């Protein structure tokens, strides 16, 4: 069954990355994706946003997806005039965590002992990415999202 098309605009540049399910391979891929985007003249802050989002998603798959070493994660990155669209396909356990709303609470700086040491990942993804959705698939996960291209004057922080 063809995937539902959600990207309104044809990408003018696209690349695919195959990632072994370990943290080191995720790191290497993030560096490669960032270099590829930079080659497409994407501004550094947008490359950073993509790296932050993909780091959380890919590491989450590595940590919780129960993938065999031979089961590579497939990442497709497409560049349009307004977004960097990402599709991530894996054969691991179904994970739908990104559809949950982050319950990260802004820290109370006065109580050091109660500062959170986790929960940042989902919050970062939902702060930066848009249109997060799981595409229908029989085995594993197929996630799509986009990272808006921002200009210096549109910084979200």
């Amino acid at each position, binding site marked *: 069954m063809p995937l539902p098309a959600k990207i309104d605009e044809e990408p003018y540049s696209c690349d695919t990355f195959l990632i072994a399910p370990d943290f080191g391979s995720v*790191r290497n891929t993030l560096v490669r994706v960032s270099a590829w985007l930079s080659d497409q003249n994407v501004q550094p802050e947008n490359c950073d946003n993509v*790296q*932050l989002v993909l780091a959380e998603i890919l590491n989450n798959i590595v940590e919780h997806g129960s993938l065999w070493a031979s089961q590579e994660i497939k990442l497709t990155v497409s560049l349009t005039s307004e977004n960097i669209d990402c599709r991530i396909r894996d054969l691991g356990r179904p994970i739908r965590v990104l559809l949950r709303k982050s319950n990260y609470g802004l820290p109370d700086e006065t109580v050091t002992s109660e500062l959170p040491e986790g929960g940042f990942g989902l919050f970062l993804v939902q702060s930066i990415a848009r249109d997060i959705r799981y595409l229908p698939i029989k085995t594993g996960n197929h996630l799509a999202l986009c990272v808006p291209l921002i200009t210096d004057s549109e910084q979200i922080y």
Partner: protein
Amino acid sequence: MNLISQELDGVSVISVVGLRIDAACAIQFKDRFRELAPENKDRVILDLDGVDFVDSSGLGAIVGIMKLLAPNTRLELSGMCETVKKVFTLTRMDRVFAIHNKVSDAIACEDR
């Protein structure tokens, strides 16, 4: 990724040698910091100059070592690039840590 500890003008400075603090090295980072963490100091500067990426695991590790040092020792940060700063700003952790542009600024800081 490695850490180097030194004392500059009486202030303990631990510098990160490596480009990233991420899921691939967050545990190693925390363990190494524990080995180097000085005792009986009011403050320790973690110098992030040269680090170009921190993900949520890295952020969690930095918060973890802050909690490890507290309440007797305060962890302060220096040398953050814009990418790393963004992670702290988005999560509002920039309000939790004292953040200095450079190690020399941190050492010169009067609040010590």
